[in-house]
Every structure is written in C-alpha cells, then in structure tokens.
C-alpha cells in the first residue's frame, strides 16, 4: 500500500491504495466517481478518458502511483455551464450529441483537451481530436455539431476559458 496524494477535481486528496491499482478502478470503486467508464480496458475506446494536469489520458492504462502530485479532472468536476467542460456538456445536450451516454464523459474531456490546444479546429480537425473516442450511437455528426457550437459561442463571447 502507498499513501497517494493528488488533486481530484480541485480538492487535495489522500488515499491508501495499492500502487498498481488501475486509475479507472481507483476513481470508480474507491471514490465512487463513475463518469469514466471501462469500455475496452486496452486503450482503444476512450470511454475511460480523464484529464491529468489538463491533458487527456486513458485511466485504464494508468496506475494509481502515477497520480502522485498530479491534478485529475473527471466530468464530475465540471461546474454546470460555467467552465469549459461545463459548456461543452451543455452544448452536447442541446445538440442531441448524447444518446446512451456511455461515451459522453470521455468525449467531453477529449474535446476539452482539443480546444485547449487549438481554439478553432474545423470539422476535420474536430474528428481527429475525438478519433480516440468511440461512439456506437450518434454517428459522430451531432458530436461534431456540438463542438462547433462551443467554438462559435466562445468566439462570440470573446473568451477562451
């Protein structure tokens, strides 16, 4: 067991855990944060995407010890409609980009990483940005529409955060 300290959705957190516990299990089972989903367990589907120090990572391919001193964001950390992740979520809802919802938490965080690096991606680049996140329901069209809406809203308000 190790004593692990990291920032989880803005709060400094310490937990006793085996160092080789997968981060997805740590989040879902030990913290009860079930937004990150296990689709494949092998890096292929993106359902387990989280942000570590603001970058998208796959929590099925990370071990608890790797989180020491890092800052983790899951979709539970969003502030409804106000911060970036919250605005992306709101746009997904408005544009019907959520059907069964299994891919949505990972998809929203992948979009957040994309918009951090590139504020105005075109549809092609949006598709590339979410290419690691599989969706079996929407056909991606509405997801791309939602991301475009976030971009034009952001531009309208002249804000990037």
């Amino acid at each position: 067991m190790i004593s692990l300290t990291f920032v989880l959705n803005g709060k400094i957190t310490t937990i006793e855990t085996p160092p080789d516990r997968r981060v997805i299990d740590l989040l879902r089972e030990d913290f009860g944060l079930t937004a990150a989903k296990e689709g494949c367990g092998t890096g292929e589907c993106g359902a387990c995407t989280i942000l570590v120090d603001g970058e998208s990572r796959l929590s099925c391919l990370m071990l608890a010890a790797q989180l020491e001193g890092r800052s983790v964001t899951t979709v539970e950390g969003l502030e409804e409609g106000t911060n970036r992740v919250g605005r992306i979520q709101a746009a997904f809802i408005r544009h019907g980009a959520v059907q069964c919802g299994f891919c949505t938490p990972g998809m929203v965080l992948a979009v957040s990483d994309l918009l951090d690096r590139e504020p105005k991606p075109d549809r092609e680049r949006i598709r590339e940005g979410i290419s690691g996140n599989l969706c079996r329901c929407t056909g991606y069209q509405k997801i791309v529409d939602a991301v475009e809406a976030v971009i034009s809203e952001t531009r309208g308000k002249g804000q990037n955060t």
Partner: protein
Amino acid sequence: MNVLLPSTAEDLWRILGDNPDALLCAGGTDLLVKVRAGMIRPVSLVCLERLDDFRGIRDEGDTFSIGACTPHTEIVTSSAIDAFLQVLKKAVHVLGSPPIRNMATLGGNICTASPAGDTLPALYALDAELELWSRSHVRRLPIDQFITGPGKTTLRKGEVLAAVRVRKPAGKFIHHFEKVGQRQAMSISIANLAALVKVDQTDTIENISLAWGSVGPTIVRSREVETALKGTKLSVEGLKQVFPLIDRALSPISDVRASSTYRRRVSANLLLRLAVHEGCRT
C-alpha cells in the same frame, strides 16, 4: 506489483540496482496492455515519466537529440520537428489517438520493436542513432543494429534508451510517410512507407532513402532499391522499374489484418505516391 517513480537519474540507477528484475515503463500504452492480458507479470515497474533527462527535443546544430521519453504529442507539435523532420512528424501524426499520443513515447515505440511500429520506418529512413545509458556507460548505435526482430532488441540489463539522435537532412528533401491500415484513425499498420527523396531541377533522383514497415520481421531498408533509383527520373514509370527489386526485399506475413500478397502489392504501390508528391514536377 510495485510501482517506482524515480525523479532523477541518480534515483533511477539506484532503483534499477536494487530491483534488477524490474521492467521499465514509459507511457505504458504497450506495457500495461500486456500486463492486463497476463502476458507479462512484472514484480516491479520503474516509470520513466518524471525523468527530465530523458525528455524533450534538443537542437544541437546539425543534429536533433530527442529524449526517449518524449511523448508523441510533443513531437507532433514541435516547431523544430515541423521545420526539419517532417517525415517523423507525419508518422507520429497517425500513431494511435490523441490520448495515446499524450501518454505514449518515442522510446516506447522503438523498444517495443513491433514490425508495425509507425515511427520506425521514419527513423530508419533518417538513419537515426540511439543513445543507451546505463549506470556507468553510454553507448550509441544505429537503430537497425538495436532492433533485431519482432519485439527483440539488443537492450542490455540495466540499460535505458535515453535519446534518439537524428541528423537534419542537408538540403531540400521530399519527406513522405504513408500508412495503410483498416481504418483511418487508430489502426495498426498493414504496411507503411517512409521516404526521403532529393531531386535536382530535372527531377532526377540525387538521393533517396526508403523504409517499409509491417512487411518483414523488422523494418525493411533496401540499399539495392535505393541504388537502382539514384540517377533516374522521379516518375511513375521510373519507380515501377524497381518493383521486382522491392518484391525481393520484402518478406511479409499473412495475418488477421491482411494477406502477404496484399502487403507486397500495396508496399510497392505506396512508392508511386512519390511521383505525384508536392514539390515534384511531372
């Protein structure tokens, strides 16, 4: 499984000394998949992600030194790589997906030594040299002497791949990389080709290096094909002349993704793209 995270090279050598059977873990995108599948059962993992000495892109004048633990995202977004090593940038751009590229490293792709590893043909075409460090020793060797077979390298116990050294191609080269997979994003290469070509004003090939992936036990670099093409016009007809030589150089297998016959045909045809390459008049 014990998970150790050294933050200095000194820590690393001490930990490796104390845990001789530990496995190294960079991004974990190959390693942790194998652990999960029960293919390997390490007692301890030594994570390289906090070692600044092994990370980052250094411009040393005529050479780049790329830290082995540099994540692919950093390579793809580097303006220096964009300016001088487009062939590597193009290869990394089609490797995995954004989160995979955020985690996975160049050194991990090399040490996994998969015949389908996407950065490998680019690194072979660039004649990359690897720098390996152990506690008391540094050695350098060409990448084709490091990778000896599928999943096999000459990495010694206690050694870590520290950096990849690549000379800046002198003069104006066409940098080409193309991958054929089952879908556009996130697919393992069925065949891929990296090429560096220099032509004169009349489109005559002055210099060319070609490296194919996924069509042999390791990357295939054929000096015979390269020599045959030097001094010829870069054109579809000219390139087709070397198809028999290419056929002889490749030894593809059939697997779930493609047959060996398809791999042979597509590998030769991949070369034709050079004739219509931007910056090359016809």
